[in-house]
């Protein structure tokens, strides 16, 4: 008899956890330093901070190490850690015009005030495997720095603020004006969202959404499920200063800078409240350097403003907002690994009953046929 009533759950769980550590280290290479992840897996750390909704590069790096590089798992670890942190202050609105940029481009105009700043990007590199990285060593790194000269880093020469492209369009009356909805800011971590959804709640949900699913939804709209033809008005990556109001201080208190990516998506014009046709805007902003997410967020912010009576998936705010959270969707998708013996038994019960009813119905159908035509015999009887 191979049945064990109570499986050795505790022991199995403990063993599974040890096995994880074993698999992480069994190759024999020296353990990765958290600092190495933080500095050299920069974009992975940024994605984890953005989807984990906590700006904490070192903890995000630890989470990545702990999760063996699994981005969603690391984001989840960070998000769960975030939930235990007391919420002392809300930061004041950050002015991204004051961003210290490392990268800033516009696809709408060739030449823009402040100039196009390409910054660190893979956009124009050829995606060839760089086999020289196999040989990377402290010596090659030193040689690289000697060659480019660390002290003359380009970013030091850039100004502390850049004019915003959308302001140019606004000045000309081509772009919708921002609407002050006089709403109290919603806090999606303290209240569950409801529909129609406040814009602050939408933007917060998007800002911590999972990059891949946001990209897929935005892509569906660009491809044809929807009617959004976006222009990237401006994409900027850089650090913005954050301030809080402190009860003991009269002036706002500066608490530090965070690296963010911001995308402003210009799209289809609509008539504004005065009946004047104007371009519309979608806004994307996320922690860290994550251009695909910021662009997808800008597009989705815009698709959800759609006035179309026949909403495509990306235009349906409930569809978008309920499905972009990576922590929620991964948790539920993975929960099918849990035992479902009880419910499956219940389903089998219904199926067997249905099959039985079918058979009975077929049998009585045969009987009726037989009565009508006594000369005919059912096959096999």
């Amino acid at each position: 008899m191979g049945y064990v009533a109570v499986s050795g759950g505790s022991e199995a769980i403990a063993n599974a956890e040890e096995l994880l550590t074993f698999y992480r280290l069994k190759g024999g290479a020296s353990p990765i330093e958290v600092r190495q992840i933080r500095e050299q897996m920069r974009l992975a750390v940024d994605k984890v901070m953005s989807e984990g909704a906590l700006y904490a590069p070192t903890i995000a790096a630890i989470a990545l190490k702990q999760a063996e590089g699994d981005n969603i798992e690391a984001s989840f670890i960070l998000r769960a850690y975030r939930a235990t942190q007391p919420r002392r202050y809300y930061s004041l609105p950050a002015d991204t015009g004051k961003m210290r940029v490392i990268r800033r481009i516009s696809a709408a105009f060739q030449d823009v005030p402040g100039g196009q700043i390409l910054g660190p990007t893979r956009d124009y590199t050829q995606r060839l495997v760089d086999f020289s990285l196999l040989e990377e060593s402290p010596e090659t790194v030193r040689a690289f720095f000697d060659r480019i000269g660390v002290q003359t880093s380009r970013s030091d020469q850039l100004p502390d603020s850049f004019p915003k492209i959308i302001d140019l369009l606004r000045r000309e009356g081509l772009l919708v004006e921002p609407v002050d909805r006089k709403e109290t800011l919603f806090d999606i971590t303290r209240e569950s969202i409801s529909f129609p959804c406040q814009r602050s709640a939408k933007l917060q949900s998007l800002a911590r959404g999972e990059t891949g699913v946001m990209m897929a939804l935005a892509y569906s709209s660009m491809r044809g499920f929807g009617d959004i033809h976006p222009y990237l008005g401006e994409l900027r990556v850089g650090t913005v200063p954050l301030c809080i109001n402190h009860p003991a201080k009269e002036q706002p208190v500066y608490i530090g800078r965070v690296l963010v990516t911001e995308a402003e998506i210009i799209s289809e014009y609509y008539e504004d409240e005065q009946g004047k046709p104007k371009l519309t805007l979608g806004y994307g902003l996320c922690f860290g350097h994550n251009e695909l997410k910021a662009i997808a967020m800008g597009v989705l912010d815009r698709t959800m403003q759609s006035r179309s009576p026949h909403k495509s998936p990306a235009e349906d705010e409930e569809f978008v907002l309920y499905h972009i959270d990576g922590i929620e969707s991964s948790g539920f998708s993975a929960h099918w690994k849990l035992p479902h013996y009880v419910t499956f038994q219940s389903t089998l019960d219904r199926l067997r009953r249905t099959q039985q009813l079918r058979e009975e119905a077929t049998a009585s159908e045969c009987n009726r046929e037989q009565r009508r035509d006594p000369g005919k015999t059912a096959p096999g009887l």
Partner: protein
Amino acid sequence: MSATVNSAATPARQPRGYNFAFLDENTKREIRRKLLKAVAIPGYQVPFASPELPIARGWGTGGLQITMAIIGPEDVLKVIDQGCDGSVNAVNIRNLLVKTTGVDTTFDTTAASIVQTRHRVPEEPMRADQILVLQVPIPEPLRYVEASEAKTREMHGEMDYSRMWVYLYENIVQYGEISIGARYPSLVNRRYLMDPSPIPRWDVPKLSMSPTLHLFGAGREKRIYAVPPHTLVEPLEFEDFRFRVEEFSGRSCLRCGATDTYMNELFDRVSGQKLYACSDSGYCDKRRAAQERRAD
């Protein structure tokens, strides 16, 4: 000496670094406020903030948050998954609760003050001094017929359950029977249609007019609801197509011989023969122990 409780001593086993029962007090208070509203409006889904826990969404975080918000040092806790105390997920949830509260635990339903469960209501009748906390994956019974939360909320508001009835009717036309297995839609207090969580139909009647308070938590969907004691819970049915529990007649548990429990179907590893065993492992163990005592 006056019996004031202000300076309740911190239990000795409380872990360092985390608050008692893991959640911070603000989060607990919000859940508590919502619980009172859930009890006051039986079957109605109250939205709550539902912060992340160190357990994945969809793995019992709703039930867990309710337990964390109600549990105290004097409680005795039982955690089951599929009716079983030893199931890995039950073990994991129990470990987290014990680590952060230091409470005593039990496998015996009758000895517990709080039972947290996934997919089952224990076989032994529960009492007025106990609370049953159910983990819920999908709190909305109308999801069968309507995907949009905004619309289902309106349907509940207007008590418009016509589409659910049509769904059941079409079910009968197609299959000759209502084909819903677990998660059987049930009307609470003649007002709100409720998803009783994916408990089998076997367990649904146990919720009705029971002396126990039942609390339902859906963490990922951020909803709390309740069935108070002595509250009518009626599975939807037609006069000529009655609600029916799962059929186990002629079957008995291979461990304890019970013929009146919800059973899991098993296959003997060697012979491939189909066997049955109680899904409620605590009750099954208790029956076996009693049989052994009698045999001695």
